[in-house]
C-alpha cells in the first residue's frame, strides 16, 4: 500500500465537500427554532459600569431576552478558567484574577462583553443591542507594555502590583554570569515581538441548544478542541456533567491557536438557550473578532549573547516582558515561559542560559497562543541576536551559525533550559536552504538590483521548535492543569472498511487524509475505505485537540497504538483460521500470512470472521474488531531547519519586496508531502505577514485602532512570492511514526530571516535596527534617520 501509505502525496479526501460548497461550518448550522445573539461590548479600555438599562432593548420587536452580568451572577456561572499556573521566582503562584463571562461592574478592555441580546432574527438582535444603555465611568487605562510597567501606572487588577501577573525565571544565573565574565565579546539587543491578530478567515461562532425534554445541552462551536471545551464547561463554567453536554466542532475555517481557548460566548449561548427555550446562535463580525479573539505575541525583550574570541557562543541572558492582556486566557501564561524560554537554546550548543520573564496585565484583549506560540518569539530573539553578533565581530553570518549549531553526534542534546532534543541535522538543512536560494549567486543578483536602484538583502534564520505537545507528567509538574496525551479509536467494520475516531481536530490540516494513510500503511486498507471522524464529543471517546503541531506526533501515535491492537487481535483470529500459531502470522500488504508459506487470509476476511464468529477462537478472543488507545508522548518533538530570504528595498519609498524564500525543514517522517509543503507555505505567509505587514495597534487610551481588514494589513497574494520548500528527514526517535510536526515551522523560522534580510539591505545606509512590521513608512523613516545622523557608507 506504498501508493497510499506513509510518504504518498495523495489528494485530500476532505476537499470535495469544501469545493462543492457543502462544508458544514458552525454558522452554517441553523437549528429548528433558531434564535440569534448579539453582544454589547465595552467601548472603553477601562471603566466602571454604573448602570446597564435593558428596558428598551427587551421591549424591541423580536427580542427574547437581554442578559447581563447580573444574570450570570444570579445563575452562578463560573468564570473563564486559566489552564496553566506559573510559579514566581519565590515559589508563589501567579496572580490569577477572575474572568466573568459578562462584566461584573468593571470592564477591562475594549470588547469586554457587557450584555447579550437574544432575538428571533439576527437583524432584530442587532437593532436591539443598540438600545441597551450602558453608563460608564471611564478610568485610566494602560494597553502597552512600556506604559503598564511605568511607575505609578494604572492597575488592571488591584492584586497585581505593578501589573505583574508573574515574575518567573529559568536557567542558571551563576553559570551564565560566569560565561559573560569570561567572554571576549558581548552582543546586546532590545527587541519587540509585535502583537498580532490570528485572523482565521472564519470568524468565531457558537450555537447552543438546551433540550429540556432530555435535560441535555448541545454546543456547536468553532473550536480546535471540543473535548477540552466540554471539560472546562463541565468543571468550571456551565457546571453540567459531561454526559449532559455534547460539544461539536464541525468544519472549522482555520484556527491558528485562536480557537483553542474556552471563550465566554460558548458558555453564554448554551446557558441562554436554557433561558429562552430555543437554540441561540452567535457569529462574530470581523471587527468583533479583533476585540474578542485572543491575540498573539506582544513581548519586549532585552537579550545579551556572550561569545569567546573565536565566535563560539558561551552564554545567553534574556529578560522578557510579556503582555497577558486584561484576563488570563486558557494557555496564556505558558506561552512566554514553557513555550518560549525553553526554546532559547535554539539549534545551538549554548552552554549557559538564564531567562527571566515578567508577565504584565494590560487593558487589552487576552494574549495567548498564536501559530508558533512562544517559539517564534524565542527564534526571533536568537536569530536577530546572532546576526548582530556577526556584524559586531565582523564574521560571516552563515559561518557563525555553522560554528555554533549542535552537531549530529551531539544528540540527544540536553539544553540549559530544560529540554532534551532527540535528533536533528541542522548543518544539512542549512546547506540545503543555501543551495535552494542559490546563495552562491547572491552577489550577482545584488549588483543587478543595485543597477535598478534597489537595495538587495539576504536574510537567514536557523531555528528549532518544540512541539508534539506534550508529556502529561512533565507539563503537570510545570503548571498545566490538563494532561496532553491523545486518544483514538479504530473501528473495523464487518466488511473490512474502517472508521477512525480521533481526539485531534482538523481545521485545514488534512487529518481526514493523513490519518487514513496511517490505516492504509498499517492495515493495507485503501484510504477510500477509511473514514476519519473528529470534532464531536459524542462520537469520539476523548481528546485534547489540535495545537502545537501535536496532531500527527501525538494523535497519529494514538491511532498507531490502536491499529497495533487491531493487528494483534487479527493475528489471533487469523492464526485460528489458518491453523497456525499467532507468533507465526504476519500482516503484509493487507493479508495475514503464515510466515514462510503461501497460506493467507485477507484482512477483510478476518474482520468478517470477527463479526460472524462461527469458526472462531471464542474461548479466548472476543468477537468484534474495535480498539481504543490513549498515547502520552515521551518527550516533545523538535522540528528545525533553515529559512532563507532575499528582499529588495526601494530606498526612495521604503517598500520591501520579498523576492525569494527558500527553506529546508526537518519535520521528521513525512506522511503526505503535499500536505506538509502546504502547511509550510501557510506558516511562511503568516511569518512574512508579521515581519512586514501585520500588527495590532492600541493607542495610549487602550483603543484598538486597526480592528478591521481595512486597517489591519493581512498578507495578500500579490504581497508574497512562491516558496521553495525542501526537507531533510531525521526521524523522531520516541514516537512510532517518527514524525515531528510541521504546522508552525513557517511562522517560527521566517520572521527573523525577513528582518535580517531587510537590515542587510539597509546596512550600507547605516540602518542597524528595525522592528516588526517593517512597513514602508518605518523603513523610510529609518533611512531618513540614518541619513540625518550621517551614518552609512
Amino acid at each position, binding site marked *: 500500500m506504498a501508493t497510499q501509505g506513509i510518504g504518498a502525496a495523495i489528494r485530500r479526501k476532505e476537499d470535495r465537500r469544501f469545493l462543492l460548497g457543502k462544508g458544514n461550518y458552525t454558522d452554517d448550522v441553523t437549528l429548528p427554532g433558531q434564535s440569534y445573539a448579539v453582544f454589547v461590548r465595552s467601548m472603553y479600555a477601562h471603566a466602571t459600569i454604573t448602570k446597564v438599562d435593558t428596558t428598551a432593548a427587551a421591549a424591541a420587536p423580536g427580542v427574547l431576552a437581554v442578559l447581563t452580568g447580573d444574570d450570570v451572577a444570579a445563575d452562578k456561572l463560573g468564570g473563564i478558567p486559566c489552564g496553566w499556573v506559573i510559579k514566581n521566582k519565590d515559589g508563589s503562584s501567579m496572580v490569577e484574577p477572575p474572568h466573568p463571562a459578562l462584566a461584573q461592574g468593571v470592564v477591562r478592555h475594549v470588547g469586554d462583553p457587557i450584555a447579550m441580546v437574544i432575538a428571533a432574527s439576527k437583524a432584530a438582535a442587532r437593532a436591539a443591542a443598540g438600545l441597551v444603555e450602558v453608563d460608564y465611568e471611564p478610568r485610566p487605562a494602560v494597553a502597552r507594555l512600556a506604559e503598564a510597567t511605568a511607575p505609578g501606572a494604572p492597575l488592571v487588577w488591584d492584586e497585581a502590583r505593578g501589573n505583574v501577573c508573574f515574575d518567573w525565571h529559568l536557567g542558571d544565573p551563576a553559570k551564565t554570569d560566569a560565561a559573560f565574565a569570561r567572554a571576549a565579546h558581548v552582543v546586546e539587543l532590545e527587541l519587540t515581538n509585535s502583537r498580532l491578530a490570528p485572523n482565521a478567515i472564519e470568524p468565531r461562532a457558537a450555537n447552543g441548544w438546551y433540550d429540556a425534554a432530555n435535560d441535555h445541552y448541545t454546543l456547536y462551536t468553532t473550536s480546535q478542541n471540543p473535548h477540552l471545551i466540554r471539560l472546562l464547561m463541565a468543571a468550571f463554567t456551565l457546571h453540567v456533567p459531561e454526559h449532559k453536554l455534547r460539544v461539536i466542532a464541525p468544519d472549522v475555517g482555520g484556527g491558528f491557536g485562536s480557537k483553542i481557548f474556552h471563550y465566554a460566548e460558548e458558555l453564554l449561548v448554551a446557558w441562554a438557550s436554557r433561558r429562552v427555550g430555543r437554540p441561540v446562535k452567535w457569529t462574530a463580525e470581523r*471587527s468583533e473578532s479583533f476585540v474578542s479573539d485572543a491575540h498573539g505575541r506582544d513581548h519586549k525583550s532585552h537579550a545579551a549573547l556572550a561569545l569567546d574570541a573565536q565566535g563560539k557562543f558561551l552564554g545567553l541572558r534574556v529578560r522578557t516582558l510579556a503582555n497577558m492582556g486584561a484576563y488570563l486566557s486558557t494557555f496564556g501564561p505558558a506561552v512566554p515561559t514553557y513555550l518560549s524560554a525553553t526554546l532559547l537554546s535554539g539549534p545551538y550548543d549554548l552552554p549557559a542560559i538564564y531567562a527571566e520573564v515578567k508577565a504584565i496585565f494590560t487593558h487589552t484583549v487576552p494574549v495567548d497562543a498564536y501559530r508558533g506560540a512562544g517559539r517564534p518569539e524565542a527564534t526571533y530573539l536568537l536569530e536577530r541576536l546572532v546576526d548582530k553578533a556577526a556584524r559586531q565581530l565582523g564574521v560571516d553570518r552563515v559561518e557563525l551559525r555553522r560554528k555554533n549549531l549542535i552537531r549530529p553526534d551531539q544528540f540527544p542534546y540536553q539544553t540549559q533550559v530544560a529540554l532534551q532534543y532527540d535528533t536533528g541535522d541542522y548543518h544539512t538543512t542549512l546547506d540545503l536552504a543555501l543551495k535552494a536560494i542559490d546563495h552562491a549567486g547572491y552577489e550577482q543578483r545584488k549588483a543587478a538590483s543595485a543597477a535598478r536602484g534597489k537595495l538587495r538583502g539576504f536574510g537567514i534564520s536557523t531555528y528549532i521548535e518544540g512541539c508534539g505537545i506534550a508529556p502529561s507528567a512533565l507539563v503537570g509538574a510545570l503548571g498545566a492543569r490538563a494532561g496532553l496525551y491523545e486518544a483514538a479509536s479504530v473501528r473495523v467494520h464487518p466488511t473490512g472498511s474502517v472508521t477512525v475516531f480521533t481526539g485531534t481536530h482538523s481545521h485545514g490540516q488534512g487529518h481526514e487524509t493523513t490519518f487514513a494513510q496511517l490505516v492504509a500503511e498499517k492495515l493495507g486498507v485503501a484510504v477510500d475505505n477509511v473514514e476519519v471522524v473528529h470534532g464531536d464529543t459524542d462520537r469520539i471517546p476523548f481528546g485534547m485537540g489540535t495545537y502545537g503541531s501535536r496532531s500527527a506526533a501525538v494523535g497519529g501515535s494514538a491511532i498507531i497504538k490502536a491499529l497495533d491492537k487491531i493487528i494483534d487481535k487479527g493475528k489471533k483470529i487469523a492464526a485460528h483460521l489458518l491453523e497456525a500459531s499467532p507468533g507465526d502470522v504476519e500482516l503484509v500488504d493487507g493479508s495475514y500470512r503464515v510466515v514462510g508459506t503461501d497460506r493467507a487470509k485477507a484482512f477483510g476476511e478476518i474482520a468478517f470472521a470477527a463479526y460472524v464468529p462461527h469458526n472462531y477462537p471464542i474461548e479466548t478472543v472476543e468477537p468484534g474488531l474495535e480498539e481504543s488507545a490513549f498515547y502520552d508522548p515521551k518527550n516533545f518533538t523538535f522540528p528545525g531547519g533553515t529559512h532563507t530570504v532575499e528582499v529588495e528595498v526601494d530606498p526612495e519609498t521604503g517598500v520591501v519586496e520579498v523576492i525569494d524564500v527558500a527553506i529546508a525543514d526537518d519535520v521528521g517522517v513525512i506522511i503526505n508531502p503535499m500536505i506538509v509543503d502546504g502547511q509550510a507555505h501557510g506558516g511562511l505567509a503568516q511569518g512574512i505577514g508579521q515581519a512586514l505587514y501585520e500588527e495590532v495597534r492600541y493607542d495610549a487610551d487602550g483603543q484598538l485602532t486597526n480592528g478591521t481588514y481595512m486597517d489591519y494589513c493581512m498578507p495578500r497574494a500579490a504581497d508574497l512570492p512562491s516558496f521553495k520548500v525542501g526537507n531533510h528527514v531525521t526521524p523522531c526517535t520516541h514516537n512510532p511514526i517518527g514524525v515531528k510536526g510541521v504546522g508552525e515551522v513557517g511562522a517560527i523560522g521566517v520572521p527573523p530571516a525577513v528582518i535580517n534580510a531587510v537590515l542587510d539591505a539597509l546596512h550600507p545606509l547605516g540602518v542597524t535596527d528595525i522592528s516588526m512590521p517593517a512597513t514602508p513608512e518605518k523603513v523610510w523613516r529609518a533611512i531618513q534617520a540614518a541619513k540625518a545622523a550621517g551614518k552609512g557608507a
Partner: protein
Amino acid sequence: MATITLIVNRQTHTIDCPPTTLLVEALREHLRLTGTHVGCDTSQCGACTVDVDGKSVKSCTMLAAEAEGAQITTIEGLARGGELHPMQAAFQEHHGLQCGFCTPGMIMSANDLCRRSPDPSEHEIRHWLEGNLCRCTGYHNIVKAVRAGAASLRGGK
C-alpha cells in the same frame, strides 16, 4: 418586507425579506446556500464572492434586490452531474485549499479572471486575487491551482 425573485444556479426563487437584505444573507439564510461565506464586515476578504451575470461580485456589498432578475451562480452551482468544475478539480489536484473557508470565493473569483484572461500569468493571478484573503495556504498552491484550472478551461475540459 420586500418580495424578491432571484435566479440562482439556474433555479428561480422568490423570497420575502427586508429590503435591506444583502445578497449574501439572501443566499445563506433564505436559500440555505451556505457555501458562500462571510469572513469580514468591510468587503475585504472575498469569501462571499459569487457570480452575477458573468462577473464576480462580493455578495456582501450588494443588496439582494439589486440582483433581482440577474443570473446568479454560487459555488454550489459549478459542478455538473456530480463532476467537479475544472477550477474545483484544479484546486483539489494542487492542494489549493486547507480549511476550505475562503475556497468558494477564490474559485468564483478565479473563474471570472479566466473569462477575462484565459491564460493568466502568476503575476496576473496574484494581483487579481488581491480581494480574496486566505490565511492557510500562503496563496502558493492557489496560484498553481488557478493556472492549472485556466489551462483545463482553455482545453475545454
